[in-house]
């Protein structure tokens, strides 16, 4: 045997090895089995217990696997009865319900009765053996008790009128009806073994990889599961998700708005955009000199060019926000003032305030978009003579600013908060008692606090709307917030497949997924 012979053999072997991948040629990655749809979510399951869930992934599963007394209609905030045959608000503090008979829980846990409603709702008001409330206790804070009046009938008794209870409690993830028998048997395991009575059952979970929902043949509710299985792959990285979508591995994914043009590369795909209701803003700490001077805050508001931020950081893919509540929400202030970039006015206000040499710190998350926003704001403020130091933080350090009064040292902060459909959820973080916790502007207004309290406990929609608009006017007068965007959600989905979403784009209504 000689070396040259070995070399030839080696080269031959290498060439052969290089052809191995060709053995896989033309193999479709996604089976054309239309009884199954494979979609992508970005976060794995944390805890499926409705009272201790951790994010939208769990909400999306709960909507499909569990029934609520009432559920949102497809792509809408309007609701219709689900497990309930009838559901009526008979007074400000009483809601009566009657269940449809014969609604069976998965896994042989029996028929749903009014006792299951009492158990599912009252567990939000109870504390564990160490005195801790569930994470989502606030969703049912108005609940006094549930009175069972028959096998299928009962009354939800409230401590005070609670208009938000319908959209935040009864129709949402918190209102998912659990089997009391299953919870008694499974104990803490309900965090990973969800037993519901909805159109789909929770069949399988491979942590960090995928979970599978399977059509429930015993389902007796108003909807029809259109797929035998919904397979959800967990793909945290948006670019990977985009590639998986283009490679036909998944039929639905959300993408970063700036990547939406990439979606068009798929011939048999469609792009869907849903305006968000979340809110991102630059908060100004009103306690920290010289920001305690309202003229300085107004100057900063005129100096920062929000349109340039939308163009530079978001490539004009998201709409600009001008106040707290997004269009479509109760209390949206359509006549809100729009502050255009006006460096001359900003300089004049600074001169009036007697401030000529200001240095500030701008704190933000360390993702690319947040840093781009911070850099644009830094350049804008330099234009009017304000020197800004950027302080990007990872999410752990950033959200720790809500602890131990850490926000007292903040100056300018880019803040992204998520929303719910009732405006009281959004306004609560601007209350005086949130200073030192999540009110990082540290702005206090007794009138705002009073309005929040009143608006959260009256049922008249018109009156509520007026109060929320007034609250936003107060925020606007404080010049403590520079609103950036409510965001947008961009999805790519196969043309054969018809998804459904709530109008926030975050909550996916898997139970209504269908073939186009």
């Amino acid at each position, binding site marked *: *045997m*000689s*070396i040259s012979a*070995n*070399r030839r053999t*080696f080269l031959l072997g*290498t060439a052969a090895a290089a052809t191995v*991948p*060709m053995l*896989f*040629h*033309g*193999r*479709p*990655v996604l089976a054309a089995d239309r009884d199954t749809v494979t979609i992508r979510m970005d976060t794995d*399951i*944390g*805890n499926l217990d409705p009272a201790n869930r*951790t*994010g939208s992934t769990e909400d999306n599963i709960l909507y499909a696997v569990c029934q609520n007394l009432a559920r949102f209609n497809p792509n809408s905030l309007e609701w219709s009865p689900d497990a309930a045959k009838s559901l009526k608000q008979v007074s400000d503090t009483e809601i009566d319900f009657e269940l449809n008979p014969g609604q069976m829980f998965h896994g042989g846990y029996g028929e749903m009765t009014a006792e299951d409603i009492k158990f599912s709702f009252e567990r939000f008001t109870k504390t564990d053996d160490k005195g*801790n409330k569930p*994470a*989502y206790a*606030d969703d049912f804070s108005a609940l006094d008790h549930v009175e069972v009046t028959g096998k299928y009938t009962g009354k939800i008794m409230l401590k005070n009128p609670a208009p938000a209870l319908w959209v935040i409690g009864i129709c949402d993830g918190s209102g998912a009806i659990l089997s009391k028998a299953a919870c008694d048997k499974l104990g*803490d*395991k309900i*965090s*990973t073994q969800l037993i519901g009575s909805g159109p789909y059952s929770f069949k399988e979970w*491979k*942590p*960090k*990889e*995928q979970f599978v929902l399977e059509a429930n043949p015993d389902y007796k509710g108003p909807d029809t599961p259109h797929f035998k299985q919904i397979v959800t*792959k*967990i*793909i*945290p*990285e948006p*670019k*990977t*998700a985009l*590639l*998986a979508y*283009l*490679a*036909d*591995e998944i039929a639905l994914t959300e993408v970063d708005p700036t990547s939406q043009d990439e979606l068009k590369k798929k011939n048999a795909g469609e792009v869907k955009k849903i305006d968000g209701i979340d809110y991102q803003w630059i908060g100004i700490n009103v306690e920290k000199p010289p920001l305690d001077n309202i003229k300085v805050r107004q100057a900063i508001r005129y100096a920062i060019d929000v349109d340039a931020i939308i163009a530079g950081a978001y490539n004009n893919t998201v709409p600009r926000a001008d106040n707290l509540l997004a269009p479509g929400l109760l209390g949206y202030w359509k006549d809100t003032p729009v502050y255009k970039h006006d460096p001359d006015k900003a300089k004049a206000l600074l001169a009036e305030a007697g401030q000529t040499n200001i240095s500030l710190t701008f704190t933000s998350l360390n993702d690319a978009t947040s840093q781009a926003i911070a850099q644009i704001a830094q350049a804008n403020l330099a234009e009017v003579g304000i020197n800004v130091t950027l302080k990007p933080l*990872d*999410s*752990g*350090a950033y*959200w*720790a600013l*809500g*602890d131990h009064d850490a926000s007292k040292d903040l100056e300018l902060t880019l803040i992204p*908060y*998520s929303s719910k459909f009732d405006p009281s959820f959004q306004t609560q*973080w601007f209350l005086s008692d949130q200073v030192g*916790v*999540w009110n990082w502007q540290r702005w206090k207004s007794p009138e705002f606090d009073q309005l929040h309290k009143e608006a959260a406990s009256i049922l008249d929609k018109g009156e509520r709307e007026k109060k929320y608009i007034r609250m936003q006017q107060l925020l606007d007068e404080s010049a403590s917030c520079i609103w950036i965007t409510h965001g947008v959600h961009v999805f790519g989905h196969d043309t054969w497949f018809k998804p459904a979403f709530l109008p926030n784009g975050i909550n996916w209504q898997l139970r209504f997924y269908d073939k186009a």
Partner: protein
Amino acid sequence: MPQPLIFFLRRLFATALTVVGAVAALFLLIQFVPGDLVSVLLGPRATPALRAAITAKMGLDEPFLTRLWLFLSQAAQGDFGNDVISGRPIRDIVFEVLPNTFELAFSALGVSLLIGIPLGALAAVKPGSLIDTLLGVVSVAFITTPSFVLSIVLLLIFSISLHWLPVTGAGTPGDFGDRLDHLILPTTALALGWVGYIARLVRASLLEVLAEQHVRTLRAFGVPEWRVVLVFAMRLALVPLISVLGIGIGDLIGNAIFAEIVFARPGIGTTLYNAAASRNYPVLQAAIVIVVLTYVIANLLVDLVNGILDPRVMRARRQAA
């Protein structure tokens, strides 16, 4: 007591110390890291009471030494406690993804050895030739290309354009073909850098050995060239490579995180990353222990193999002791 046994016991003791030291260092670091799990997961929904409750549940309100002792004593029994969010045993969370990472790291190591050693040998027997020059250029290109860049390029070619191989996941457990499909691209992305590195290392080492007197003697005695290279010289040339492999396993597990993120593969890398980002310290500690254990055991094995291949190593350590 036989010398090899003493050598082994000494290395075992050092290994245990390394694990304890790494875990202690991690515990110490946690004292200074801002942020908590509940705030990261729930944002403004995280009430101070809930944060305090979860902190207590994770045992973070206990003194440093108490926590360290509790963790080490429980970990020694294979018990890492339960995850405070899902309530699942942390042992399950870590061990269910560990095979995926091992599969990826060891397949990448295997591929890089299978390709890198022959390439290095080929370059060494023909120094200065076209093949040697070409291999030098290609090796440096492989070494300097980050694995995540390579991952994306491979995905674009083989998954998006050609539709030959899947993009995400680790494949169906028990289905060998499916798992192999899911392994090809991440393995290639991880292995190529090491192919270049191993090829360079083997070339340099083999050239050095081939220039030694005993090799000249072998040639003078008419031993065939292939036996000189493959049987006599290669054995000695591989000693430095084996030492590097110990470090390589750690490097591959570290690099696996990029492949796991890009290919959405469940694994210890993404588990570590997510646990650190979300401040889920109990899961982070358990994952760190597993990674440290893997690393030190690999190095222990490397030391033992080195000792067997080259008795001078064991003799040197004995003299040092």
